[in-house]
């Protein structure tokens, strides 16, 4: 066996390994978006084959193999051509392919790094094995070069598999680390010992959480889990990073999300709530739950987790949540409503009722009646979006229960700010009003967001990729969105022809002028449209923002 063959094989292996590593690295963010779930990621890879696994390296390999095959004139000696050809194919695989703009970049978490290092190690080991095998099996230049090149291409196209394999390999380690992390969080909570307020719902959780924090801070010190952290791990991160050693926190407000039954129960096992709030039960994540009943059962776990002397706060206006209220647990329950009649309160009906709700571009104004004390106060807030009245009422119920007066609450409500990317109104440098509602894509939220758009007087554009994760209701709810949009918007720009099909049909079922409806394939085109078409005095609503996997 000659040295040039060894060196050539190693070179080919190195270039292909680098290409495979690069491929794995580029795939990692999609794996991350799919929350390291092997099956979900595998399904995505199959659906988006061309994006996950580009054809160029394969084409290059075939071409190079043919060249090597036909140019191979020295069966038993050293020949440069097969090595050069395979190396060239490897370089073709290594030179990065153009990618569409990244919206959600790879986040270099500790876990992601451990995963990547494992995957890279696997690739390197496999390539070393390939080189070793090819050299022991044959001393022909052609066979060596070809076999190592093919092995490299296989390693390249197995990029998703390396990620999944690394994930499986790391599972025991990740599980141990996760347990330790949870144990630490449990210790933090026991040490700081704040009152825990749990919030769940299909939507409105984050907004209610932030409002409650801002209102309670008028008298106490409240901490709310950041952003939309609502998983077991998210809650642990909040506890370990922010709550640890902060003994000034009176209230720990914890958003609890659920994709499956039992998840809220598990979070409640970590942070047993003293007060639980159920905001909404709706079709969000319906495809994962199967039915609205299942969603309601999952959400009810937050009430079941209360001790008998805890407090439950319920949205009376949602039939599923009202049923939870009527089940009678715990003894202390408060329901709130924006629909009930404040003048003839029901005996076991909602305690806090909002009425005479007025909405304008400067905010919301409404009266709140506490039927238990028969007091009424006018609330005024710069926050827009009618659905926020209910979120404010839920927060009010908790604040009053904890000893604040309606006056105290009203003063805080007057200073509320919208949560990040939730119906935030800004005016851009050209005078166009941009309404950013990138996070609340749910049937309740879109209705009030459209209403806010409708209050503007110039051209009113809606840019949306539609609502997702609605399961069986996907078509129906998006169709309704299309119909509704025509009542408030003058222009409709749909992003993504496939998933916005139901909206288009909704729009087209009305007399909405067709030339005012556009379907584009990427958000950037929609943004370009708005920059070109809209001027001072016009308004644009950015409704829902999709992750890159859609």
């Amino acid at each position, binding site marked *: 066996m000659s040295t040039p063959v060894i060196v050539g094989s190693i070179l080919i292996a190195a270039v292909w390994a680098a290409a495979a590593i690069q491929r794995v690295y580029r795939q990692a963010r999609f794996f991350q978006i799919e929350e390291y779930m092997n099956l979900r990621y595998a399904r995505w890879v199959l659906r988006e084959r061309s994006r996950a696994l580009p054809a160029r390296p394969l084409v290059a390999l075939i071409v190079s193999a043919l060249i090597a095959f036909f140019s191979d004139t020295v069966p038993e000696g050293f020949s440069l051509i097969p090595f050069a050809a395979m190396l060239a194919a490897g370089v073709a695989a290594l030179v990065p392919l153009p990618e569409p703009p990244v919206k959600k970049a790879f986040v270099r978490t500790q876990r992601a790094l451990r995963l990547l290092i494992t995957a890279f190690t696997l690739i390197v080991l496999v390539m070393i094995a390939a080189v070793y095998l090819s050299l022991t099996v044959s001393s022909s230049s052609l066979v060596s070069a070809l076999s190592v090149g093919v092995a490299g291409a296989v390693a390249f196209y197995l990029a998703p598999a390396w990620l999944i394999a690394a994930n499986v390999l790391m599972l025991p380690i990740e599980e141990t680390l996760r347990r330790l992390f949870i144990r630490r969080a449990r210790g933090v909570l026991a040490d*700081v*010992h704040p*009152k825990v307020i749990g919030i769940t719902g299909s939507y409105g959780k984050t907004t209610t959480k932030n409002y409650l924090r801002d209102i309670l*801070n*008028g*008298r*106490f010190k409240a901490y709310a889990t950041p952003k939309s952290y609502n998983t077991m791990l998210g809650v642990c991160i909040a506890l370990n990073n922010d709550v640890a*050693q*902060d*003994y*000034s926190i*009176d209230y720990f407000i914890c958003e609890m999300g659920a994709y499956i039954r039992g998840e809220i129960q598990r979070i409640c096992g970590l942070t047993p709530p003293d007060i639980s709030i159920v905001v909404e039960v709706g079709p969000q994540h319906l495809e994962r739950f199967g039915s609205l009943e299942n969603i309601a059962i999952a959400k009810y776990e937050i009430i079941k987790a209360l001790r008998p*002397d805890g407090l439950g706060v319920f949205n009376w206006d949602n039939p599923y949540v009202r049923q939870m209220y009527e089940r009678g647990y715990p003894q202390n329950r408060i329901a709130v409503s924006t629909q009930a009649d404040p003048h003839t309160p029901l005996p076991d009906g909602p305690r806090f009722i909002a009425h005479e709700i007025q909405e304008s571009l400067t905010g919301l104004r409404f009266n709140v009646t506490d039927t238990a004390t028969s007091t009424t106060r006018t609330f005024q807030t710069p926050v827009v979006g009618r659905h926020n009245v209910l979120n404010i009422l839920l927060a009010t119920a908790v604040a009053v229960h904890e000893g604040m007066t309606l006056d*105290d609450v009203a*003063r805080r409500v007057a*200073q509320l700010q919208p949560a990040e990317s939730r119906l935030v109104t800004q005016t851009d440098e050209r005078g166009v009003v941009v309404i950013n509602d990138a996070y609340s894509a749910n049937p309740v939220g879109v209705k009030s967001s459209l209403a806010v758009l409708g209050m503007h007087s110039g051209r009113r554009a809606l840019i949306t990729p539609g609502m997702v994760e609605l399961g069986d209701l996907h078509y129906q709810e998006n169709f309704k969105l299309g119909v509704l949009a025509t009542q408030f918007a003058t222009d409709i720009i749909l992003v993504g022809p496939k998933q916005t099909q139901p909206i288009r049909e909704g729009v087209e079922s009305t007399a909405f002028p067709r030339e005012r409806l556009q379907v584009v394939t990427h958000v950037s085109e929609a943004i370009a449209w708005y920059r070109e078409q809209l001027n001072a005095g016009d308004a644009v609503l950015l409704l829902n923002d999709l992750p890159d996997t859609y």
Partner: protein
Amino acid sequence: MSSRLLTVAVIFGGRSVEHDVSIVTAQQIMKAMDRTRYQVVPVYIARDGKWFTGDPLTDIANFKDDAVLRHKDVIPVILSPDVRHHGLLVDPLARGLFRRPQVIRVDVLFPAIHGTHGEDGTLQGLFELADIPYVGFATLGSALTNDKIMTKQVLRQAGLPVLDDVWFSRSQWQHTPDTVLARIHEAFELPVFVKPATLGSSIGVSRVADTALLRPSIDVAANLDRRVMVEPAVNTPTEINCSVIGFGDDVRVSVLEQPLTYTDFLTYEDKYLAGSKGMKSADRIIPAPLDEAKTREIQRLALEAFRAVDGRGIVRIDFLLEGSTDRIYINELNTLPGSLSFYLWRPSGLSESQLIDQLMHYAREAHAEKRRSLTDYRTSLLTLAAARGIKGTKK
């Protein structure tokens, strides 16, 4: 929170001439606290300014000969100004395998230090930094009422009756004593009272009836304090005391007392050392034998004075009734009255433990009121500065 005991740190002792009195006051307070509602953490500041905590500090018998400081369960502690600790750092300099600083979260702070470094706003300033509810006057009211000269200026400005006075600084007295004496003689006939501006418990106070004794009396006062006040003695005085508690609009006034030990004035020993129980056993008449109108008038003045000095929590206001003219003067405000004026509140309908409950309530309400004001007011200043550089020039 609601279901839990309220952790209350009672802070006493202190670098003050009234150190010993403070220990007695603190023991009375801790004894009166309902243990089914409060968990008491004693915090003792030794004469030299070292801070300690530990159970032995709740027993007054341990304080004889400073024995308490050698007790193994008495350990160093500090009140952290870092809002995140919200309380005490126990053994803050501890290091080692099994020793590390520990945090005790405190719900309410109860200062029981008389005079300097306790009643004068300094301790309250620390409480404000720590952002923990505390009993009693806030920084401004404490600092104000601790200074007799400033208190009278504010009360006078509010239209409340106080005696005239002449005041001067120690350096004025050292450099131009004759000018000072001339001012005094011009203003008042003898007898007069000479008082250091900020000390309580009658320390350094003299009644001067003889011109020859004026200089030495002022020397005594000027040795104790940077500023000295001289005011005329009231003819045939009757002392009347009244306590006020409250916060904001929720203010109430106690019955009146007339202390009977008043001869010329109370000395330190009269106040605290006469009999084993101190002032409590001194003869007094409760309610003070005044007619309805006079009683009402004094109570009204007490309430107005409380508001004028931004009062909160508790205060005992001492009045002087001039026999010859029937005039009323506000003489002094004590923001940590001896025995917390329990003896005035019992006949007013509040037991010791109820009075403590009220004071805790006011402390928490006052703190809630503070929270109503925004402190986290973000401006675009930093964004601008970051973009343009600190000098306002473009990068």
